[in-house]
C-alpha cells in the first residue's frame, strides 16, 4: 500500500451539462449526479450508450467512480476526455476495469469534455443502469490512517422469531462501515479535513478509497461521514482523529 486514503467530495461532474445517448424519460441521465445511488439513469439500449459531461472549461480530474450499475462482467466501459465535443479520436481514452460494486479510475487529466461509453450486449435487462458518477480531485492526507482500523460489513436486515424458533427476516442491503484512526495530522491536513467536513458534514456524500493502489474497487465506498470532526490535539499542533464512514445506497 503506497498511496494513502483518498477522499473525494467535490464532485466536478455535478455542475456539468449532461447529455447522453438515450434515457428513459422518468429515469433521465441527470440522475447520474443525484446524491442517491438508487436514483438511476436508465438507457433504452445496451450496445452503444454513453453519457457526456461538459465542465464549461478545462478542469483537472484525478478520480472517477461509478456506483450502482447493472453492467455485466462482459461490459466494455471506456472513459474519454477531450478539449472539444468531438469523439472520433479523443485526447484521453481509458478502458475501465469492471467491478460489480464500483468501477473506479485514478488519473490526472485536465479537459473540458468528458464522456463514458458503455457496451454490454449480453446484459439480461437489455438496458444499462447507472446510479452515481463521481469525479474530481480527491484529498489525500499526508499521513494515512493507523493500523488496526476496522472494516466492518453490516447486515441491517430485521429479524423476528416465531414460536418454533425459526427466524423471519426483512432483508436489507448490507453495507460497509469504515472506522479509522488518524494520528499526527499536520495543521495543513487538519485544514483540508475541516474543508471536507464543512462541505459535506454528516449529510453529504463522499467517495472513500481506503487503499487506492491494492484495493481500488473493493475498498472504495460511496459513503457518509457519521462522526463529527473531533480533533484530539497534541504537541506542535498535531491532531488525532477518529472517523467513521458508512456506505450509502
Amino acid at each position, binding site marked *: 500500500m503506497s498511496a494513502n486514503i483518498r477522499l473525494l467530495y467535490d464532485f466536478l461532474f455535478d455542475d456539468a451539462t449532461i447529455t447522453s445517448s438515450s434515457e*428513459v*424519460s*422518468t*429515469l433521465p441521465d441527470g*440522475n447520474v449526479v443525484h446524491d*442517491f*445511488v*438508487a*436514483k*438511476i439513469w*436508465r438507457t433504452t439500449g445496451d450496445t452503444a450508450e454513453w453519457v457526456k459531461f461538459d465542465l464549461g472549461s478545462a478542469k483537472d480530474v484525478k478520480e472517477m467512480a461509478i456506483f450502482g450499475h447493472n453492467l455485466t462482467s462482459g461490459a466494455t466501459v471506456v472513459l474519454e476526455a477531450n478539449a472539444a465535443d468531438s469523439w472520433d479520436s479523443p485526447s484521453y481514452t481509458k478502458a475501465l476495469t469492471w467491478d460489480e460494486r464500483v468501477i473506479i479510475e485514478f488519473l490526472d487529466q485536465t479537459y473540458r469534455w468528458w464522456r463514458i461509453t458503455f457496451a454490454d450486449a449480453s446484459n439480461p435487462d437489455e438496458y444499462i*443502469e447507472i446510479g452515481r458518477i463521481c469525479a474530481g480531485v480527491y484529498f489525500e492526507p499526508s499521513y494515512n490512517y493507523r493500523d488496526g482500523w476496522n472494516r466492518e460489513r453490516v447486515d441491517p*436486515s*430485521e429479524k*423476528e*422469531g*416465531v*414460536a*418454533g424458533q*425459526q*427466524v*423471519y*427476516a*426483512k*432483508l*436489507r442491503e448490507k453495507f460497509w462501515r469504515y472506522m479509522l484512526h488518524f494520528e499526527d495530522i499536520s495543521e495543513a491536513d487538519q485544514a483540508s479535513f475541516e474543508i471536507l467536513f464543512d462541505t459535506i458534514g454528516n449529510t453529504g456524500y463522499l467517495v472513500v478509497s481506503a487503499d487506492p493502489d491494492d484495493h481500488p474497487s473493493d475498498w472504495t465506498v460511496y459513503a457518509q461521514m457519521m462522526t463529527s470532526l473531533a480533533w484530539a490535539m497534541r504537541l506542535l499542533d498535531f491532531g488525532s482523529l477518529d472517523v467513521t464512514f458508512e456506505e450509502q*445506497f
Partner: protein
Amino acid sequence: MGLDTTKTALDLHCLVKIELTGKTLYYADRNLAMSDGNFYEGRAKISALNVAFNSLAEPKQRQVSLKITLDDRDGALISLLDAYQWGNRSVGVYIGEGRDLSNYTLDFQGKIRFPDGILFDGHHIEVSVRDRRTYEYAMIPSGTYTATLYPNLEEKSKNLPIPIAYGDWTDGDGTCPAVCIDITINEFKICAHAIFSILQVYKNDIAISHTDENLTNAKFRISTYDPENDTVTVKFQGKKDAGDVLITHPIDMIEDMLTDYVGIFSGDIDNSSFADTKERIGDLAARRFISDRVSSTTLIMEVCNEVNLDFYVKNGKYTLNHREPDVEIEDTFDETDILRNSFSVSVDPDRLYANRMRARYRYHPGDQKYLGDYLIEDSQAISDALETVYRKMDFEWLYRDVEVQAITSRRLMLQKSQIAVIQVAVKYRGILKFIADTVGLTFSKYTQRPMQIREISKDFDRGTNEITLWDILSFVKMGHWTEDDPIFPDATMNDAGWEGSNSGETWDKTWPVLMKQYARQHWGYWTDDDGYIDPTDPDSLNVSLWY
C-alpha cells in the same frame, strides 16, 4: 410472478402512488428505481393497515383508513401542497419484493381524505387516506315529486321522494302506494324507473281497473280519484335489468344499486365474486320499496346481513363473499409461522349468543307494517344456558316464508354455538391475505382447522400481520349435504389418507374425530328430524338440522 411469501427472508418493500391532477408521485420505504421506469423516493412510512369486518350481526367491512408519513426534511414536498390539490386524489399502496413491479400486489386503494387529509410540520407530511367505500355512496332515491316536475301533482305528495322498487310485489299480500302526478287526468306514478309489469291497482284496498299503462315510466291512470280521501296502491313487478328481466335476486339488487345509483363502473366490481356468491346461495328472492331516502351503503348492508354476505373492497374492487365459505384450505399457518406469544382464543367476544330468535319480515309499504313473523328457540340451549337469550331480526328485503325461516334458524344455530375467535400474528405468509380468506390453522388444539380471516392488521414496516380468525367449522358449512344416509366414496377416503380398517362407505361413529371431520367437510350428511344421522352418532346432533 407475484410476491413469494413462502420465503423466510424477503426484500420487502411498500410502494405508494399518489395521483394528483397532472402529476403522479411515487414513494417507497426505500429509494427504489422500479421496473416500470419510475423512481420511488424513499420518503414513505406507512402506519399499519387494518382491514376488518364488523361483528357477525353487522357484516360490513369496517372503515379502512391509512396514514402515510412522508419524510420532508429537505422541504422538497411542501411546495407540492400549494401547487396541487391533494384532497380526494387517488392513492395506491403496493406490497412486494425487490425492484420488479410484477412482484408487487395492490394491497390498498383509496383517496386522500377531504377535508382534513393533510397535516405537516417542518419534517414530515402526513397524508390520511380513506377507503373508497366511505365516499362512494348515494342517497336513494334521489328524485323528488315536485310541482315543477309535475304541475298537477296532488298536494299530499309534494316533495316526497320518487321511490325505487325492487322485486316482485305481486307475490303475496304486499302492495305499494302510488302517487297521483296529475289530478286532472288521475295519472299515477309508482316509482322512478321502468318496471316489469302492473298486476292490479287498488283504490282504498278495493281492486279497480286501470288504463294508459306505461311501464317505461311506471305510470297508469284510473277513472276517478279524490286526493283528499282516496289511497291508491298497486301490485306490480319492479325494476328490470339491462336485458329487460325483472330483478329478483338480492345479489343482482346489490349490483344494480352500485352501478345504477352509486355510479360504480362495472370494472370496479369483482364480477366473479358476485357470480360465485349468487351461485352458492342459489335461488333467493328479495324485494324492497324504497320510499325514504337511505344511504346505498345502509341498503346494501341490509341485504348482506339478511343473506349472510360479506361485502368489502379487495384489490380496489367491490367484492362479495358468502359467509358460509368453502372449507377448502389453500394455506395453513402453523408453529413455523405464528409469532411467539401471539396466539389466543376467545369465545363469543361480541356477546352474540342467542337461544331464541324472532324474525319480522315481508314489510308492507301500504300499511307500513311487517306481515310475517317467525319465532324459533332451541330448548336444549335454553336449558343448558339456564336462561333465555333473545335476539330479533328484521328482514327488509327477504320476504318469502321458507327463506326467512331457514335463515333465522341458521342464525340461531350460529349464535347459540358461541363462535371461537382466534388471534395470531404471522410473518410474511400473511402479508397477502385479506379478510374473508379461508386459511388452515395447525396450532394448539387445532389441526388443519379451516378458519376465516375476519380482521387483519398489516405492519408493512415489520412485515408482521396480526390476524383475527373465526372458527368457521364451529358454525357453518359442515359439509356438502346429502339428503339421505351419508355414503363416502371408499377410494377418495383412501386417497385422503384414511386407509385400512377405518375406510368405508358408510358412516361409522367409531371413526377418529379427524376422519369424521374430513368426511363431513367433503361429503357431508343430512340429519333426520331427530337431529341425528343414520347410523346414529352423537357427534352429528343438530349440525345439519336446518340446512
